[in-house]
């Protein structure tokens, strides 16, 4: 990074000699440097990054201290034990240790958030780019479909789809661990219902960018359309996509929590922060620890991701003049 900065002004000097401009003009910054400079001024965003880092550390480094067996071990003699030194977060209705479950549940929640957004972004970019680039009939067909998806409230659609894809996928073995197939289902349905908003953003970007001269030049030199879309136009519209994807992770984690909370999401024994809350309200008088800890973790991760997204939005805003 520092080498880049050091090199650039040398080039600048050789082009503009003897005006002393090199002292006034700061070296041109790349988009990444500019974004980082603005981002780091955003105090809440930095706070968000730190909390997010700690949460990721918590759920991935926690595996060193707790095995997955300890997270899934049931012992009805220990049911609904309040927080103690043996079980710092208490135990749930069938005696599983909540601390260990929040660690393993965190992994699943984070993985669901990230992969669902990857799916969302892929579908959203594809549909938005095709609609925006081709226009005409393609555009109106794709946009009618997008609009139809937007007009069905997402939580209703998710519940129906959770039921639809219910037992489609068997349990998976990854890294010697067993994951409930419902994890894949949840990732899929969250990804497949979240894209419409993003694809509208991408379409709007493409509509304006495709009128630029560099697109005309690319077309004139016979560049294949897929390259024009993905190598020429897409990198120019990356800023709003990054912001929307970041906020999308928080949204996906919340949605997973909602569906699992309603008992239609990820199935036990695989823990997520959402399904740990399922049924917790039945024990609200006896066991506050059942909902407090997973609930707090969800609030923390969503809050920190939202802060990061907000910071990125300000940092990537092309109209912003602040350096």
């Amino acid at each position, binding site marked *: 990074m520092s080498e880049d900065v050091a090199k650039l002004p040398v080039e600048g000097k050789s082009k503009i000699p003897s005006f002393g401009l090199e002292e006034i003009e700061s070296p041109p910054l790349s988009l990444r440097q500019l974004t980082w400079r603005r981002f780091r001024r955003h105090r809440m965003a930095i706070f968000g990054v730190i909390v997010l880092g700690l949460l990721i550390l918590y759920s991935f480094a926690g595996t060193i201290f707790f095995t997955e067996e300890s997270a899934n071990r049931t012992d009805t003699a220990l049911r609904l034990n309040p927080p103690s030194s043996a079980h710092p977060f208490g135990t749930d209705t069938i005696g599983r240790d909540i601390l260990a479950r929040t660690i393993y549940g965190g992994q699943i929640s984070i993985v669901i958030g990230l992969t669902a957004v990857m799916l969302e972004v892929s579908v959203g970019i594809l549909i938005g780019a095709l609609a925006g680039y081709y226009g005409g009939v393609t555009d109106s067909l794709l946009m009618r479909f997008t609009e*139809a998806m937007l*007009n069905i*409230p997402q939580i*209703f659609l998710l*519940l129906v789809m959770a039921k639809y894809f219910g037992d489609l996928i068997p349990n998976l073995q990854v890294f010697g661990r067993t994951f409930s197939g419902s994890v894949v289902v949840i990732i899929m349905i969250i990804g497949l219902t979240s894209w419409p908003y993003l694809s509208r953003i991408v379409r709007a970007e493409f509509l304006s960018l495709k009128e630029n001269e560099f697109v005309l030049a690319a077309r004139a030199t016979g560049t294949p359309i897929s390259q024009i879309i993905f190598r020429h136009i897409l990198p120019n519209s990356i800023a709003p996509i990054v912001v929307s994807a970041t906020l999308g992770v928080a949204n996906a984690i919340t949605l997973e929590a909602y569906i699992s909370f309603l008992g*239609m999401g990820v199935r036990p024994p695989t823990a997520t922060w959402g399904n740990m*809350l399922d049924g917790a309200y039945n024990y609200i008088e006896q066991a506050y620890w059942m*909902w407090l800890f997973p609930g707090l973790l969800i609030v923390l991760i969503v*809050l920190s991701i939202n802060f990061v997204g907000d910071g990125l939005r300000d940092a990537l805003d092309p109209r912003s003049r602040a350096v």
Partner: protein
Amino acid sequence: MTRYIIRRFLQAIPLLFIISIVLFVLMQKMGDPIATMGGRTQTRSADRERLTRVLGLDKPIFVQYLYWLVGNDWAKIDLDGDGITETSGTRKGVLRGDFGTSLVNRGVPVTTVIAQRLPNTLILMLTAEFVIVAGALVVGVYSALKQYSLLDHTITTISFIGFSMPIFFIALSTMYIFAVNFKKWGLPYLPTVGMFDPIEGKTLLQVLWHMVLPVFSIAFISLAAYSRFIRSTMLEVLNQDYIRTAKSKGLPRKEVIFIHALKNASLPIVTIVGLDLPLLLGGAIVTERIFAWPGMGRLFLDHVSRSDTPVVMGIMMLIATAVVVFQIITDVIYAWLDPRIRYT
């Protein structure tokens, strides 16, 4: 303007068709609708064959969709399975206002099932919406007037937290504080379950008392989003030239803020309220589940889990239609309120 409204409604028709087709396809694998039909015992296989024919589930999906859409009273169906179509159908189809009958509550029309629950949801959600708009106006205007003050920063932080909070967390926390702990401390505590105490009966006071916690939970989260929005539109308006003019000609501060500024700042609120209103019909699924409120959200959950496709389809079409219609109404009202906007 009339032409614009007509055009928008004409555009809405194909949109609703696409939505209904997407939903209808999704309904196909919602589970086996005749597994128990809401009863406790399994349906016998002889009954199963007959029911499949009665419900038209043996037909290809596009025929099923057609029957759902326009009914089957014009067609003959084969009820006894001998290959001869002799009985005429009884369904009228959605286009004639017949959404079919519920499978779980056998024979009860979907419209009746929904109509029983809709008022409960509307009581809850309209109250919440009223609290949200009123509260957001107060909070938003105040923090815009006192921009960058300590209170403004506090409000911004709280609203950011509220915005990020899943509704079940706020619902469970308030339940824990105001119901569980208040009971423990011997204070008057709030009820957490249902619409009214069965002993007291369904009186206005009871319903209001039971509404406090659910309304608070719904309102807290949206209040955060709304007040942030109002704050930013208010700040934008306060920087306009006509506000400076109003101030410089010596109008009282109250008049400038509430008549000149707020009137214009509240215009964009029409949009978000208009887009949120149709979603109220669906109720807050999670909130209704936690507080056992007998509304649309719980109706939806119960019938999804028991594969009652006609009811689920009916609820989702109702909401989707409301969303489409309210979008048009919102655009029209906006143009009517803001003379700068002209649709052609």
